[in-house]
């Protein structure tokens, strides 16, 4: 079972997990990652998420293919929101389901690293009061984290 969505609306983690696990008795481990918008100590009011419609879905699908090729997964779900997202709100959701916990943990970690560096989304910061602080700069650590997976079997 596989689910991919690029959407403006919030997602429902419990519902998504239920979709992946309902009626199954071969899943031993479910890992979820939820990314939230931080206010950076009250500085930020919201993040505006711009994306490349079409390519976002295709690239996320390719990243999911790669996760499925690397680990035995019984289910995975990736949801990425776009539009204006207030501090405290959800941005991204990854769920992985497997017989064993290692596969579920590693696949979720991998998916997040790859989404960060490959999925065509860009964040713009909005301050309290309505001014923008401009676009978030990509972090070198994120590229390094994604590169970790390259040499692994």
């Amino acid at each position, binding site marked *: 079972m596989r689910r991919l969505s690029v959407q403006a609306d919030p997602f429902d983690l419990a519902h998504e997990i239920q979709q992946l696990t309902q009626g199954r008795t071969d899943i031993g481990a479910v890992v979820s990652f939820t990314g939230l918008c931080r206010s950076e100590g009250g500085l930020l009011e919201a993040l505006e998420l711009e994306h490349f419609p079409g390519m976002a879905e295709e690239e996320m699908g390719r990243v999911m293919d790669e996760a499925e090729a690397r680990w035995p997964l019984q289910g995975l779900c990736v949801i990425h929101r776009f539009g204006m997202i207030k501090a405290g709100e959800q941005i991204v959701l990854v769920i992985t389901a497997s017989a064993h916990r290692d596969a579920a943990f590693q696949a979720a970690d991998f998916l997040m690293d790859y*989404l960060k560096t490959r999925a*065509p*989304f860009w964040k713009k910061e909005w301050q309290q009061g309505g001014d923008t602080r401009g676009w978030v700069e990509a972090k070198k650590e994120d590229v390094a984290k994604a590169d970790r997976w390259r040499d692994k079997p």
Partner: protein
Amino acid sequence: MTRSVKILYFAWVRERMGRAEEVLAVPDDVLTVEDLARFLARRDEEGAHAFANPAIVRAALDRRHVPPHTPLQTATEIAFFPPMTGG
């Protein structure tokens, strides 16, 4: 015979270019992704600003990430954007 491609811009590349997309008749001497970036940088002020540091701008050809030296060949759509910051 000149060929047309659709060009898409995202995030600050879009803002600096002052447009989200355009259709361009590709000049004969523009063969690769980086040729096209160089052409846009020379074309006008907006392009000079957007591609001021061409090493930073990323590209996708028909919705797939590609390195700068990639030939345009039969691609119908090319997108330019900053390094991604989703997730």
